[in-house]
């Protein structure tokens, strides 16, 4: 059985299941309860700035913790709690706020297990909203998964649809490693069939969401839909595209990437982030490094430009990868 949910509802459901099935799971963050345990006083709760966690505090009043606006304190505390037996789910309102809490992720969560010679586990999940598309401008629209994906010790996932979001979040919460779970703004509004009940989508496994033999379009998060739309238009011209949804940026499903490359010989990677040191560049490098003999054309990257995210609507739309730019990239491969 499944029903149509949006991404936020799927996330909410995943957290509910995780908390129900494991008493060590706690939810912390700014406004995650949002004043919401005053049963009977007629006051409703916020459930986070986007209302994603609304209602959870009613089910788990002791384990949904509103925090002060102290990202360093929140994430640092969550790392300490994770190291000592809890399984915290932290909401970092927007990934842009990574700047205020990088140390607990970069130097603590990512490193403790290694520095301690394997004698620690950090089962921490940081949920965060990522990317452009809401005219939130330069400090609330970045796609910074490339930073966390580049830090050994952290895992980074980014679902492209509500069903994957639920399964990936459950897998993330139950993973004994720190996982950064990105909720792309471009996907937040999308609805889709979401299975009921408890299921996990394995971290590190990409998903081939469309099959075609002529070109491989590789996306993740919000760019999967961009690839799909481009693939439809290309099909009208007789070019059939594989569309690979990476889902997990670290660990990266290198095998799936190389498999689609071997099949089509040409790859276009579509990444919402800026191009330098990006996932797109990483995938392109992988194709050249490990898949060189399969390449029939140059690997093309479709990314945002190397600039902050602009506010103005037309500028923001032009900033984001579009199906037209993907098609242009395919054409430029010859």
């Amino acid at each position, binding site marked *: 059985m499944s029903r149509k949910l949006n991404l936020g509802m799927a996330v909410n459901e995943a957290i509910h299941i995780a908390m129900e099935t494991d008493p060590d799971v706690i939810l912390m963050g700014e406004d995650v309860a949002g004043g919401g345990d005053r049963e009977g006083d007629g006051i409703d709760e916020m459930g986070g700035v986007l209302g994603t966690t609304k209602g959870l505090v009613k089910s788990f009043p002791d384990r949904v913790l509103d925090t002060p606006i102290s990202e360093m*304190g929140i994430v640092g505390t969550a790392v*300490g*709690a994770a190291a000592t037996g809890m399984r915290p789910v932290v909401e970092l309102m927007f990934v842009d706020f990574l700047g205020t809490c990088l140390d607990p992720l970069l130097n603590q969560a990512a490193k403790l297990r290694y*520095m301690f010679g*394997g*004698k*620690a*586990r950090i089962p921490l999940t940081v949920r965060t909203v990522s990317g452009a598309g809401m005219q939130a401008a330069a400090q609330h629209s970045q796609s910074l998964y490339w930073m966390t994906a580049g830090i050994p010790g952290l895992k980074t996932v980014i679902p492209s649809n509500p069903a994957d979001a639920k399964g990936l979040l459950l897998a993330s919460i139950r993973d004994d*490693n720190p996982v950064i779970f990105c909720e792309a703004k471009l996907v937040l509004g999308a609805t889709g069939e979401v299975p009921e009940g408890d299921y996990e989508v394995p971290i590190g496994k990409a998903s081939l969401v469309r099959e075609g033999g002529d070109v491989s379009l590789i996306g993740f998060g919000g760019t999967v839909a961009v690839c799909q739309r481009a693939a439809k238009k290309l099909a009208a011209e007789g070019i059939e595209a594989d569309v690979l949804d990476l889902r997990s940026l670290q660990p990266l499903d290198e095998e799936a990437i190389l498999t689609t490359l071997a099949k089509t010989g040409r790859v276009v990677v579509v990444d919402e982030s800026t191009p330098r040191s990006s996932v797109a560049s990483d995938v392109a490098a992988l194709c050249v490094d490990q898949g060189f003999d399969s390449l029939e054309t140059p690997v093309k990257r479709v990314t945002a430009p190397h600039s902050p995210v602009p506010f103005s609507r037309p500028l923001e739309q032009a900033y984001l990868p579009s199906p037209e730019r993907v098609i242009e990239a395919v054409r430029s491969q010859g």
Partner: protein
Amino acid sequence: MRPTPIESNPGRSQNTGQNTGESSAMNLTREQLLDAYRKMRMIRAFEEKLGELVAAGKMGGFMHLYAGEEAVAVGVCAQLGQRDTVASTHRGHGHCIAKGVDVGAMMAELFGRASGTCKGKGGSMHIADVEKGMLGANGIVGAGIPLTTGAALTAKLKRSGGVAVAFFGDGATNQGAFHESLNMAANWKLPALYVVENNGFGEFTPTEFVVPVKDIAVRAGSYAMESAIADGMDFFDVYEKAGEALEHCRSGHGPVLLECKTYRFAGHFVGDPLVYRSKEEAEDWIQNRDPLDRFESHCVEAQLVDADDLRQIDHAVQEELEAAVEAAEAAPFPDLSEITTDVYYTPPGEGGAR
């Protein structure tokens, strides 16, 4: 979880004072006293040995020695049990020894050997033994403070009765992590003991150059949190104040900030030219306030232990240390394949994560 409404509590600062002799420390048994001395002596000897080894070029890495501050680590940790955790600093060897981490494994770790506490992958600034409740030395100033807040949150949610202790320097109290943590811990009434080791210098800069308050303990006031000040060179004073603080934490009254006034005998790190402090000042602390000397004279005068007992401990510590060095030097380095292990936890039966 909602915060319990907080009663007006401006924080409580106590003046440093000599031990009055009417404290809980006076109830320590002879065995407890000898064990405390043994730990302090081991810390001192360990750090002196490291100084030699680094100078002789036998040991690498950044090395920050704890000599002079032994009474703080031992005075606090002597009252901690298995359920309690400790988060430490880059100057962390003392806390490890005080919390009961194996000295042989520590020495092997500092030599980068596979038999080290952390398989040779942590080194001086990252010695940890989570099984002993030791959440690690930490190379980032102030980073252990939120970790402790988190450990205290675990203790509270799991009702373990444990207390999470963070040791950190005066410098760390200028970090946002300190203030954010104290705010959260006080708000949630977490069982956390924040021990600031105020040794008068943040790296090379005198504390008063960068901190406008004379006593760091007063910073607790902003968070309506208990605080105390102890003579960090006096085992008995630290023991007593820490004991009261731990009791406060354990009984669910929330966190405490304990400031221990102390002094590091060596510089910030091994190789520090020490140009920023006067020889006279250092000599005064080292000659007149050495925590081991003070412990001995107090105990011997009060006829709690014999000086001979202590000399025997000195001898045994030295022997243990020599053996630890010998074993560490003879131990194998980690296999090169260890470079990429322990990056991620992989459940048994699953392939290694990439």
